[in-house]
């Protein structure tokens, strides 16, 4: 029988992972939705954020300062990329976008290897954050609670930004009908740059916060990017709400699947078979979910585009 | 009672609460040109899309040759003999004019799971295709890449592609859109040549063309038919004149 404490703990970890996915998915889904742009380099910004934060944190002994530097630094890199390269690709086909952003990934991975070396960087947590809080008589790491808190705060901020402000109105209009926003005489280029920069900053935030949990490594961006793509597909391109629901769903399923699938399999499979099949099945779980969602709702759970 | 090839019954489609077609009913007789006119936004193109199967209707029925085709996808309707042209030219820009039409012929010549023989060497595709180009007066432009044809030629090519599917009913969505006077005249004479051999549902803004060609006219306003009859009846109809025709239709 599964220990309920363990169950709760892993559920908690799943939510926390989902929050990280959300921070990445929120910016990227807007880029996909509004600009109809295939951007693979989003993961590179996440990696960059993680490395910068880690470096500053280690040098200054201040984790907060690390985040404070990583965010604007990555934001600047993101805006630079948008203005110099990506902007020229909006009118091109998806294939050109794929290829160019793929080139960016190669570049950034190699750049990080050149600067920081092939080994990853472990980021130590400041001792204040490195303790547990007991919730329902279960000890939970304070840092992860904070990550969830920050993620929820960002979600709230994005919600207000997108639903309540004029810029958000334009962003939403852009996601459902690009020509219309252009026709309104609004400088769509500025909105694009703004959205891209916002996405870059959120990616950096996710990367900086992921540092102490997973360590900063080369290729960390791509591994998580694929899961972020699954989140976006499930949630529906261009939908923040979809990204939030999708991210939590994928985060929880991913973590819970890895922890409990073999216990589940053992209920109806021989122990040996269960132990072989479970890891394989766990690694496929979210993709199977994606295929199912697509089968019934090809536009995702919360399609932003109408008509 | 004449032969009815297309019968539309209470067709309805709304976009987010706005009714584009509103309980629209009409019948098209075999061999006739039936024109549908109406102001912009009257739901004419929506109706064409519903008839061709590109849009699902909210309610109502479409009977074609006595068969209910309401739920069918575009390829199935095409196979039954409904061909359409698009208001905004829709062709294969990378192909030559002849290849465009040959592809339409191919669509109605059995399945295309034929992997080996070069399609461009098949006379049974290219002879009918050339014939269709001749009908619309494009035969001498057959080997030109479609991208390089003029706007008027694009419209002619669209008609040739529709004809190549040997349709029982042609749905023509503003074939004269964006044309100069001379090109329009050419199109009218092409359509006149098709008259009798083909049944046509014609949407058109050019009133001279409509009254020159149509056997029957239906006037659409806000997705609903407000009048239907012979051209003379429509010309004389007070309601139509106030709602739509105004001076334009009676000027000559």
């Amino acid at each position, binding site marked *: 029988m599964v220990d309920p404490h363990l169950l709760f703990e892993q559920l908690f970890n799943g939510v926390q992972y989902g929050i990280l996915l959300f921070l990445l998915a929120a910016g990227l889904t807007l880029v996909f939705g509004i600009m109809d742009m295939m951007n693979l380099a989003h993961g590179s910004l996440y990696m960059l954020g993680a490395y910068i934060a880690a470096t500053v944190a280690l040098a200054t002994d201040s984790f907060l300062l690390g985040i404070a530097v990583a965010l604007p630094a990555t934001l600047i890199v993101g805006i630079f990329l948008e203005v110099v390269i990506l902007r020229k690709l909006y009118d091109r086909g998806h294939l050109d976008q*794929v290829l160019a952003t793929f080139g960016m990934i*190669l570049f950034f991975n190699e750049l990080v290897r050149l600067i920081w070396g092939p080994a990853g960087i472990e980021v130590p947590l400041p001792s204040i954050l490195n303790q547990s809080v007991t919730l329902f008589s279960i000890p939970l790491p304070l840092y992860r609670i904070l990550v969830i808190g920050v993620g929820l705060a960002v979600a709230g901020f994005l919600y207000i930004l997108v639903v309540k402000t004029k810029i958000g109105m334009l962003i939403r209009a852009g996601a459902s009908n690009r020509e219309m926003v252009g026709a309104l005489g609004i400088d769509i280029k500025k909105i694009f740059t703004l959205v891209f920069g916002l996405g870059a900053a959120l990616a950096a935030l996710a990367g900086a916060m992921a540092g102490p949990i997973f360590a900063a490594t080369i290729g960390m961006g791509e591994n998580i990017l694929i899961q972020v793509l699954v989140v976006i597909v499930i949630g529906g391109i261009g939908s923040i709400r979809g990204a939030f629901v999708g991210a939590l769903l994928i985060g929880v399923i991913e973590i819970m699947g890895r922890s409990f699938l073999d216990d589940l399999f053992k209920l109806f499979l021989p122990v040996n078979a269960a132990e072989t099949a479970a890891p394989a099945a766990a690694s496929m779980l979210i993709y199977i979910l994606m*295929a199912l969602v697509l089968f019934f709702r090809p536009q995702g759970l919360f399609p932003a585009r109408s008509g | 009672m004449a032969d009815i090839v297309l019968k539309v019954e209470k067709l309805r489609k709304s976009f987010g609460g706005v009714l584009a077609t509103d309980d629209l009913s009409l019948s098209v007789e075999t061999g006739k040109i039936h024109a549908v006119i109406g102001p912009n936004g009257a739901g004419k193109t929506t109706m064409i899309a519903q008839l061709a199967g*590109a849009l699902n209707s909210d309610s109502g029925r479409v009977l074609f040759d006595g068969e209910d085709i309401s739920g069918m996808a575009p*390829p199935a309707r095409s*196979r039954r003999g409904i061909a359409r042209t698009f208001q905004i030219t829709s062709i294969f820009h990378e192909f030559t004019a002849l*290849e465009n039409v040959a592809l339409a012929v191919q*669509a109605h010549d059995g399945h295309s799971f034929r992997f080996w023989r070069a399609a461009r060497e098949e006379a049974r595709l290219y002879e009918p295709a050339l014939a269709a180009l001749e009908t619309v007066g494009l035969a001498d432009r057959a080997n030109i890449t479609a991208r390089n044809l003029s706007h008027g030629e694009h419209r002619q090519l669209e008609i040739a592609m529709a004809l190549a599917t040997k349709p029982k009913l042609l749905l023509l969505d503003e074939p004269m859109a964006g044309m100069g006077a001379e090109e329009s005249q050419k199109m009218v004479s092409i359509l006149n040549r098709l008259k009798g051999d083909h049944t046509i549902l014609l949407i058109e803004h050019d009133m001279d063309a409509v009254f020159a060609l149509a056997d029957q006219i239906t006037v659409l306003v806000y997705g609903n038919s407000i009048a239907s009859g012979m051209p003379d009846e429509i010309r004389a109809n007070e309601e139509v004149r106030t709602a739509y025709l105004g001076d334009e239709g009676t000027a000559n």
Partner: protein
Amino acid sequence: MLRRRETLVLIVTFALLAIVPYIASITEVPFYLDLGRRMMILAIGALSLNLIMGYGGMISFGHAVFVGIGAYVIGICAEHELVTGFIQWPLALLACAVFAFIFGAISLRTRGVYFIMITLALAQMMYFLGVSLDRYGGDDGLPLAEPSDFSGLIDLGDKNSLYYLIFVLLLLCLWICKRLVNSRFGMVIQGARSNETRMQAIGFPVFRYQLTAFVIAGVMAGLAGILLANHTDFVNPDMMHWTRSGDLIIMVLLGGMGSLAGPIVGALVFILLEEALSGVTEYWQLIFGPFLILVVLFARGGLLGFLEKRGSSEEDDG
């Protein structure tokens, strides 16, 4: 239809490839043989991707998964001491067909950015499956105990025989592609890339043709996988990694999409660039990444497009 310049490029390319074993033996650098084999195997993979991407407009970012599946079937068969190629190869191709059918049926329900992401995700799923298959080497991969056995016909253990087998199979694939794209089927695929709405309106149920093309391309990529397993004597999940799919896309675009010679030339140039750049610096992707961006921004149409443009006066239809 092959354009004259394209035919010329192909003849030169295959002539060069044909003499590689000879050059390798007189210069006593067996590495050339290795390089040539790798080029041709990837050329088969790129050809197959070009079929759906270049001609069919289906931008699959997971095409390497079929290379991996083909290779894994060979590896798994060998692991269970089933070494005869007469069973291994059909089995591998069949497996690729089945997976391509399933993946195609799922992803072809979508279009545009969705299609790219889904093919990518499905391929990555198989990558993780490979990683978690401890029985077959997991992350580390699976050494091939012996190459596919075609006793009495050809010895794949002999490096020259393997080279020429790959050479012939590449030619065969090229020939198949040429027939396919010019057939009725090929016209449907290209028509759907050009204007899918129009295809529907003139009566083509497009989905089934696209799915068939997806399966054919998957099987052809599977052949590349079979050859890759025999070439490296080794199978690992990395063959399915999404960057491998990215490599295939790069090859197709580098050479020129939607032409028959393009993917082959692209694969050759890609491998050469990789070798040359990594000879210059360990951090060669620092150069290659921006190079890709520049290609996208300034050299649309790839190498073949470049050649065609220079010779465009010979076939003007305007």
